[in-house]
């Protein structure tokens, strides 16, 4: 019986059209008013969680639009776990399909970048590999190396300039609508306590994608050159070591 009561109660909280569960006491106040307090708490608090996880998406969409969309999302996709720091993974894709926002297809992409930032914030900590890790290695050993990215590293490959859009929103500016459409790849990572993001040139993005997939530096370098013929591989590798992109470097023993 408690199971049925809770099922009906949960439906009444998420769906304003659902009937009230039986057995709620109406007295000086109606049961509808009384359960309404819980309904407001549930939806408003979860909308607040999304607002905190997607601040730039909210800025870009306008707070009222964002909260309206988020309230629909919350009702349709309530959290599946109580640690709300993990709530919102499905929101970017949902927002991308949200009909009233079809004229702003970049909004879901901006949300995707923000979710990557959120994941990076709460990902496992790891000490980044420093440049010195490669000291003493013979030049011919470099192509055989494999690199593990930080647990916080996320690669975003978007049809929209999401890093630029995020930066505009972050600076408090209005985002031109529609923004200029161009693809942009972004690396999100947290080498210490704060989340960083970096727009990537095509060669750099291809390099990191291949390394992330477990390829050797030689194979990743080929992918990078295929994506961007003139990219400077040594500079890219050095840049990532300085920035702290990698959690580990594995030396493959030469056969």
């Amino acid at each position, binding site marked *: 019986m408690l199971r049925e009561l809770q099922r009906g109660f949960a439906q009444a909280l998420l769906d304003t059209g659902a009937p009230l569960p039986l057995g709620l006491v109406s007295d000086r106040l109606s049961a509808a008013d009384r359960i309404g307090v819980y309904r407001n708490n549930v939806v408003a608090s979860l909308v607040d969680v999304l607002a905190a996880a997607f601040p730039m998406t909210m800025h870009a969409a306008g707070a009222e639009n964002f909260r309206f969309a988020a309230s629909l999302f919350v009702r349709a996709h309530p959290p599946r776990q109580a640690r709300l720091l993990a709530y919102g993974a499905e929101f970017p894709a949902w927002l991308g399909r949200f009909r009233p926002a079809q004229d702003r297809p970049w909004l879901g992409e901006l949300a995707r970048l923000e979710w990557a930032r959120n994941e990076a914030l709460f990902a496992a900590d790891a000490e980044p590999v420093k440049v010195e890790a490669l000291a003493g290695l013979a030049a011919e050993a470099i192509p055989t190396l494999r690199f593990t990215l930080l647990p*916080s590293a996320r690669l975003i490959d978007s049809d929209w300039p999401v890093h630029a859009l995020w930066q505009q929103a972050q600076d408090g500016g209005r985002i031109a609508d529609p923004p200029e459409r161009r693809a942009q790849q972004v690396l999100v990572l947290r080498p210490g306590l704060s989340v960083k993001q970096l727009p990537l040139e095509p060669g750099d993005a291809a390099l990191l994608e291949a390394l992330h997939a477990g390829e050797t530096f030689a194979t990743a370098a080929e992918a990078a050159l295929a994506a961007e013929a003139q990219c400077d591989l040594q500079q890219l590798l050095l840049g990532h070591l300085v920035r702290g992109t990698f959690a580990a470097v594995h030396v493959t023993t030469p056969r």
Partner: protein
Amino acid sequence: MSEKKPLQAPSLLPAARAGVGLRHPHVLHFLQERPRTAFLEVHSENYMSDGGPRRRALFDLAEHYPISLHGVGLSLGSAEGLDAAHLGRLKGLLADYRPALVSEHLSWSVESGAYLNDLLPLPYTEEALAVVCRNVDAAQEALGRPLLVENPSSYLTYAASSLSEPEFLGELVRRTGCGLLLDVNNVYVSARNQGFDAAAYLAALPTGAVGEIHLAGHTRRRFGAEELLIDDHGSRVAEAVWALYRQAVALCGPRPTLIEWDSAIPEASVLLAEARKADVILAAADPTVQGHVA
């Protein structure tokens, strides 16, 4: 169900003094200034991540303050039972932070795996009591220590309830050996919303099981000619709640007391000043303290 001996109010704190809820805007202040307060309480769920600055900061603070883990997500009242993954994460937090106090709520928030992010009310029936006892037993078994279970604030009641809330809590303590977290503001809010006598409620509790007390502010919401008190933790503790707190301390003895503040969060100094107010009341009730608190 077998009867278990009620445990002595489970607390690893050196003394019954007041602490404050740690909120994100205050973290730097506590890290840098380290203001005096008896303990810091956090919402357990906010620390259930693999890593990151939030967990790091709490590790740093745990070196200087006793920590209290206050959960909002275990859903002790869910008929479908506890989420094993959530319980596992809570167990991990206990190992990481070695909290002085661990608490949860007499409420439910999970249905068919969906987490509703509110402390929803239970009917006080034998069936619900059996469900909560089963869940508390499972949690205490997994965590290897007793929980403090908090009385909720509530805005509605069920026709089917056959026990009063103090009776329900009393049976829960008797059957599971759990302790209680007495939220005095919640008693006040529920008493006003439901029309029961708050003093009689306190008198009916198994006061020996109370291991912690919560204090917070509330607000009012009008519904036509009627109103409900809303437990929003967004203001100073109301005078009437301080009066009820004095009664609670007289009944339970001095117990670690927490100032909670969750919305419209002011500067940390405001919370700390509220905690000092509670400290004065606690010290006056503590036979081992002569005179005054610093």
